[in-house]
């Protein structure tokens, strides 16, 4: 099969995951690109439509399930994760994806994020971070930077933002990653990694809302700046970045610092990425590297194994059933009984 033929096949299969609804995002919205990559990855991992469920809350991003030809659940604001956990516990074999926004997932739904992450069910959580409330037409969100002027903050926001990955690592997530809507190859890579991880995979996707928060991530996407403002994580590799890949991140105690390679500093002096490090402090530290002080890490921050929630639930059920198969007669007879004649 020629490369072209393979491509054709792949695209056909991506179409296989389209629904009969036309997406209704604004022209130019970053959500389109993410949708395309998700469908491609579904094809690549050979997902079955009937065994896949997309769950969301409310927001522009949360319209996502309508556009995927699998099962779908468009929930209420902030609750996608709890719906997803219910689905997973009822039918552990389903492949469950959650699409949420920075408002949906971190504002009203922040608590479910913490608790779902700690329970570690095998679901894939995609948080489309556009640093704004899109659907309600432009209020600041929990990820909007301090001082951000929006409809609800005409003098600038006074709320210090939350950083999704730091929060997820605060809850000790087993899989944490980041990508950007327009970097489609990397996005597809990260999505595939998330899909293949057994446990709760948390992916933050920088997404441009060209209507209410245009260019929020320009620093990380513009040709002229992106090499200096982002750094791509590779497992086992040193943290190198820059147009000429001549800069790196070194640790000074617990503080990361940017250094130039050469002049006595080699890659060996740099921080080496280890996504499998049990101790999540490294992932936390990476999540703290932020523009403009640091290049922002992209890729898989952390990927470790931990038993998944629905397995533990089913283990207990199986164990209990093994010890004493459930018979209604026994249930009725529990405790003391007496016979009246």
């Amino acid at each position, binding site marked *: 099969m020629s490369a072209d033929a393979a491509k054709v096949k792949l695209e056909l299969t991506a179409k296989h995951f389209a629904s009969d609804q036309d997406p209704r995002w604004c022209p130019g919205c970053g959500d389109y690109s993410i949708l395309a990559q998700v469908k491609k990855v579904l094809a690549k991992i050979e997902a079955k439509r009937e*065994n896949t469920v997309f769950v969301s809350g409310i927001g522009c991003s949360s319209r996502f399930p309508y556009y995927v030809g699998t*099962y779908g659940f468009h929930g209420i604001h902030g609750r996608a994760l709890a719906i997803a956990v219910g689905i997973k516990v009822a039918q552990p074999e389903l492949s469950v994806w959650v699409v949420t926004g920075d408002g949906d997932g971190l504002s009203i739904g922040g608590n479910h994020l913490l608790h779902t992450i700690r329970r570690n069910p095998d679901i894939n959580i995609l948080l489309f971070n556009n640093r704004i409330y899109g659907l309600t037409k432009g209020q600041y969100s929990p990820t909007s930077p301090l001082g951000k002027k929006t409809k609800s903050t005409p003098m600038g926001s006074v709320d210090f933002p939350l950083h999704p990955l730091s929060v997820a690592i605060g809850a000790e997530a087993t899989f944490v990653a980041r990508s950007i809507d327009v970097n489609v190859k990397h996005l597809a890579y990260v999505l595939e990694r998330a899909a293949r991880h057994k446990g709760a995979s948390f992916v933050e996707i920088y997404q441009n809302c060209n209507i209410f928060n245009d260019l929020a991530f320009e620093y990380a996407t513009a040709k002229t700046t992106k090499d200096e403002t982002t750094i791509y994580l590779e497992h086992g590799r040193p943290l190198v970045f820059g147009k000429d890949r001549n800069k790196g991140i070194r640790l000074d105690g617990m503080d990361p610092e940017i250094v130039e390679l050469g002049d006595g500093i080699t890659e060996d002096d740099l921080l080496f990425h280890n996504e499998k490090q049990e101790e999540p402090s490294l992932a936390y530290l990476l999540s703290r590297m932020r523009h403009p002080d640091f290049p922002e890490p992209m890729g898989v921050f952390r990927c470790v194994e931990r038993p998944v929630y629905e397995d533990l639930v089913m283990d207990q059920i199986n164990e209990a059933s093994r010890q004493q198969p459930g018979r209604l007669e026994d*249930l009725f007879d529990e405790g003391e009984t007496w016979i009246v004649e």
Partner: protein
Amino acid sequence: MVVSTRLNGAQPRCVEVISLGETTVRFAGDSGDGMQLAGTQMTTTSAIFGNDVSTLPDFPAEIRAPAGTLAGVSGFQLHFGSHRLRTPGDRVNALVAMNPAALSANLSDLEPGGVLIVNEDAFTKMDLSRAGYSADPLENRSLDGYQLFRVPMGKLTAEACKDTGLTGRAVGRCKNFFALGLVYWLYDRPLAPTLRWIEQKFGSKPVVADANIKTLKAGYHFGETTELFTVRYEVAPAKVPPGKYRRVSGNEALAIGLITAAQRAGKPLFYGSYPITPASDILHFLAKHKNFDVRTFQAEDEIAAMTATIGAAFAGAFAVTGTSGPGMALKSEAIGLAVMTELPMVIVNVQRAGPSTGLPTKTEQADLLQAIWGRNGENPVCVLAAATPADCFDMAIEAFRIAIGFMTPVVLLADGYLANGAEPWRIPDMDSLPRLDVKHPGPVEGFKPYQRNDKLVRPWALPGTPGLEHRVGGLESRDITGEVCYEPENHEHMCRIRRRKIDNIAEAIPPLEINGDDSGELLVIGWGSTYGAITSAVERCRKKGMSVSSAHLRYLDPMQKNVGDVLRRFCRVLVPELNLGQLAYRLRAEYLVDATGFHKIQGKPFTISEIEAEIAKRLNK
């Protein structure tokens, strides 16, 4: 064995035996005094003996208040009789008080002239003052209006345990068996069931078993031999339908009913809940029965519990969430999603006294209109209410029958009184249980998720089925196809369909029955846990010749088709409720009948006599 010296009937001394049709005993003591145990033992014994029984525990509001204080008093009330009983008893005929605080907290419920047994060893200066007594009530004639029996239970228990090897505080913990033995003698109860229980329970600790047995018997013998008691009571067995029985509290019955429903349908049971008094015991019960494929999910809050339940229903489980009032309020937005997606599930609200945190351990019926109206938009669900502890079993199954039959969330209302109150439950025959047949569509072409059947019910299509891939959500859906639809006419159509579908349930439920004549001067109509008090009160009034009947609603939305008819066949309608008039409001709005309320909102159930008196008043008797 010493027990063989028990002289049933033949009294060693001259003791008068009074026969009672029914009587109420309350054990009261410090939380640590084992009163719940004494009470449940006597309950089982009486049930095995053949009495009808009804019980109510009374837990302190604090977890562990300091010993000897009023806040720490724990009580257990048992009503037993030789005929059908429906409540734990209006007034206490005999009170056992293990310390001054228990006396102080419970005396007002004891009938004048009632039997009052006190553990006099506990009436020390310190405990008196802890209970707020400035003078010793045993000494100052303030108890003259009762039949006071002062029993040095501490000393006598110590005596009984002397040779058992039990020492120290453990001896003190046997006191409840002394009290129990004494009461057993007083009411001529057999010791055997409790002896059996002790042996089973403490089989591995023979010293403890021995001490408890000796103490129980010592209590019994104390009654028999001391000159203190000159009267003894007997309560003959009742005529109860034959069968195998056990005692169930409402929460137990409800949980058993949920498991039964799921098992009869061959489905996993999903229970998503966040702990809250008085609903938590349902979670505890279910978590202990994972061998029935029960998947309990203790959520981070009630909203997660509710939405996880929706997810589980979408994925095909028999999905339930349970809570109490404040939690119900939190679920309200999400219940709307369940209504929109037309998924089957059961939402249990074990009501407690509100508003807000209110009196969290007390009972009330004030969430009815919340259940019906407490959501944004036109947002109808089916609302049911259980009438007695054992009825919780039936209503749990009924809730699921309706939920899956009509693809709708069903709210099942219970309350703190039902939850903790207990009554004998005739264990049902397996064959008598309804079979809940669930039909899921198989793979088809051109599946339409909102294509309805003649009852307006949409199909329950399960993820995992090829070809049925579809999407549901909280936005308005186009009928039949289920896609998002902003068209004005479709919205009106769907709002009306959702309402009509609930109304259609009325076709699938039995008519309202009348207790008493079909028409007359006064109809007393209620719902939920007031059933026992209302029914008994009406029976008493009817015996006195009053023209009164009663009816009890288990279906609150929709109501049964004949409710309007029934109401209109009576000159007046009285609605006793543990709230300020919510069912009355509903009946008035629905049927334009001048139903007037009788309200009690004190965290406590009605007594039979309260309702009796109100009936008489309404009939100008």
